[in-house]
């Protein structure tokens, strides 16, 4: 089971993060509040089925970090009708692939199957939506698996540790401060009761969206969904507090020491997300309509390809860095976004020199704007990406599921390319001047330590 930190992963080798296409998408709602979105794609006799829950680390509370992800693991551990392990065996027997992933904003379960097996997916997913059986015995084994996952993902990966510190330093009040996989201490103290509480709180048809992409007929899928999911009773969900991050009023820094050879730097600036379904004409300002798009274009100009400004100037021309990137993801359910830059200084160069070089590039945008050629390249990438991504049904489903779960209207898939294409040099300059300023900046760096083979891992001993 994957923990996807989409917000972090998307910018490293930033290909343009466009979503677009929006071919033939149909939306349905069941009486119990379950949403169903179907995109017909008849290129191959296959189907992708994804169940998205609006429950991620964003909804966790202190002391119970990681419970959303732990529950994702427990969802494979059985119901009364389908004992532990059987879910995977039944999907495998149908030739299917399956997995799940948890992020800040959601938990998603998916299967990829030959198209005639969609009913099996619905049968099994509807069963575990309502009837999960979390036993103490299965919990006690799986929490150990999740701790191994944290060790593998975070403890032994210096850049992951930097990222964890970076998030925690950037956000002081907002839950995006906390790691999706959870803190080790919280995992050590987690109980089966915590998992049950999470499941009972958030796993309900009125908190879920099913996305189906493939060689299917939308009306048939709707009937199938009504048959399998229609009988599940909705229930009231816990209140979600806004938890707005207070404005940052001065730069922040964090340093991580870990075994390694090369330093590493992450730099972030708070910036606005796209407006969701909660916004109205009365509440929104004109800037909110275009600023997030301008920030995405800025990401493309700085880091959209190997000749974009950061790689061309910092890696190729001046050799300050061996690796550098930037990017912006304009969508988030928590309505908090970061414009992020990162890089690894070349041998003999310091993180301070890299930081200065990154800031010089930002200042150049503020004073000189961007060229028409640079804007045209971003547009060319948007147009091409719009077509290329139709080659993957899974990716198309991901886009729809993410948007809906984050509280956006999926119709924005249709307008997105044109909104990006409409951005001007002046608008890119304006968002750089407004958001990419020092008082709004957080920097986290890795201070690599020589490897002492005899050293014990840092931190208190792990106790069962």
């Amino acid at each position, binding site marked *: 089971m994957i923990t996807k930190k989409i917000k972090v992963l998307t910018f490293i080798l930033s290909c343009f993060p466009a979503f677009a296409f929006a071919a033939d998408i149909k939306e349905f709602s069941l009486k119990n509040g379950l949403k169903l979105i179907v995109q017909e794609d008849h*290129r191959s006799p296959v189907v992708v089925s994804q169940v998205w829950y609006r429950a991620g680390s964003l909804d966790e509370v202190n002391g119970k970090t990681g419970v959303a992800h732990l529950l994702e693991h427990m969802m494979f551990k059985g119901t009364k009708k389908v004992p532990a392990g059987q879910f995977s065996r039944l999907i495998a027997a149908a*030739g299917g692939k399956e997995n799940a992933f948890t992020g800040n904003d959601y938990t998603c379960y998916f299967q990829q199957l030959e198209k005639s097996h969609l009913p099996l997916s619905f049968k099994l997913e509807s069963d575990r939506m309502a009837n999960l059986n979390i036993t103490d015995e299965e919990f*006690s084994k799986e929490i150990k698996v999740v701790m191994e996952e944290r060790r593998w993902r975070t403890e032994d990966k210096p850049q992951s540790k930097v990222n964890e510190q970076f998030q925690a330093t950037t956000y002081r009040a907002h839950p995006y401060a906390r790691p999706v996989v959870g803190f080790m201490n919280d995992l050590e103290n987690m109980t089966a009761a915590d998992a049950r509480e999470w499941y009972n709180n958030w796993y309900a048809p009125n908190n879920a969206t099913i996305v189906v992409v493939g060689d299917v007929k939308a009306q048939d899928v709707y009937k199938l969904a009504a048959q399998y999911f229609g009988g599940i009773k909705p229930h009231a969900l816990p209140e979600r507090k806004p938890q707005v991050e207070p404005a940052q009023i001065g730069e922040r820094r964090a340093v991580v020491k870990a075994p390694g050879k090369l330093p590493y730097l992450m730099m972030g600036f708070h910036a606005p997300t796209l407006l969701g379904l909660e916004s109205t004409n009365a509440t929104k300002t004109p800037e909110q309509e275009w600023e997030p798009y301008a920030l995405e274009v800025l990401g493309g100009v700085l880091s959209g390809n190997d000749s974009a400004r950061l790689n061309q100037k910092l890696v190729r021309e001046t050799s300050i860095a061996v690796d550098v990137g930037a990017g912006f993801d304009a969508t988030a359910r928590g309505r908090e976004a970061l414009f992020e830059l990162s890089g690894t200084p070349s*041998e003999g160069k310091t993180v301070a020199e890299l930081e200065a070089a990154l800031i010089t590039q930002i200042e150049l945008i503020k004073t000189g704007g961007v060229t028409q050629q640079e804007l045209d390249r971003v547009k060319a990438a948007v147009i091409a990406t719009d*077509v290329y991504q139709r080659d993957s049904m899974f990716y198309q489903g991901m886009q729809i599921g993410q948007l809906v779960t984050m509280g956006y209207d999926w119709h924005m898939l249709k307008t997105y390319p044109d909104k990006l294409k409409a951005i001007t040099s002046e608008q890119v300059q304006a968002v750089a001047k407004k958001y990419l300023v020092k008082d709004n900046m957080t920097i986290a760096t890795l201070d690599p330590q020589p490897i002492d083979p005899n050293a*014990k891992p840092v931190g208190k001993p792990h106790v069962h």
Partner: protein
Amino acid sequence: MKKLQFIIVLVASLFVLNANAAVKINHWQTSAGSDVYFVENHDLPIIDMAVNFPAGSARDTVATSGVAGVTRYMMTLGAAGMSEEVITNKFADIGAISSGELDVDRAAFKLRTLTSESTKALETFNAILHKPDFPDSVLTREKVRIIAGINEAATMPESISSKAFMKALYGAHPYSLDESGEVDTITAMKRDDLIAFYNQYYSAKSAVIALIGDMTEAQARTIAETTSSGLPQGAAVTKIVEVTLPSAANNQSISHPATQAHILLGYPGIKRGDADYFPLYVGNYILGGGGFVSRLTEEVREKRGLVYSVYSYFMPMAELGPFQIGLQTKKDQAGEALKVVNETVAKYIQGGPTEKELKAAKDNIIGGFPMRIDSNGKILDYLSVIGFYKLPMTYLDDFNKSVAKVTTKQIKEAFQRRIKPENFVSVTVGAQ
């Protein structure tokens, strides 16, 4: 989750076409002698192309380690008088994506472009293949970056274990060489080394061209002809030497301060087109390839909670590619986890799978066939593998039948004949 990348590697490694599948492959040879594999598909206005050369890291020697990888990479950083900046911008101006891959056997160049921009995209792509400049100044800079990467990798448990494993498994065979090279070989590398490597291994006669997408066969023939005719006209490349099997166990332990021990174990496995391919592929699905339903996952993760990931796979190559088992676990339980893995493997090799397990494996592999070819990107990779390894065209149509024919007896016999746990190579990084 299980290591999905390994599952994907295997899927890509065995190309399959079902007799009913609506994928029709055309195959011909260009006048300069390149093999071409083409699938026409007008669903999307895109063209995908891959050009493959027998120019992987097995062509390096201990003294020249890294030349294959640097040659492939440097070809994209200056060609026909165009700088790296000009090349990248020419692709970016039209939204085309140029990428590449390197493994022990193969160097590949890939292009994805909108049909409407394909003429421009191919012009730049062909310049890279035909007229690489290998600019000295770029090489000097890239050598520094590559060395930084090698030094960084030398601190990371996953890279350390993988490198030590290949070295222990293959000894003097070139499959033991690190694709990235070594600090001293990269330092010593000269522009002339890259030019010589290019001239020797990038000949038209050795090239395999895969094409899929929005073009007619006539257009595909023109594209392939143009690409092929501009390549060096040298001789076809010779075969890679055979792998020698280990004659005794080799267990290595490497210190590291990480919280987890990273463990790899295995043995030289199978070749492309190997007579034991299907019994071992299906058999490995049951042992450690079938994600959540394999014996290794069941014993090590599901029953005991010792790992997040444990897997086994065969990576068939031109010569015997690795059969590899991998896991990571908290240091103080590494011994326990390894014991369970060894017992599970020994029991499986001794007793083979049950009929029930075999049926489940076949159901998944055969039933999952449509997902192997549900995108142009996936089919392109399969065309490259078929072409590069000269797999028979009938093999594709017969794939599901070949899987269906496998018996528990064949699996047991093939594992006993080919996989010798008593001579396994094992590497533990971060042992307590």
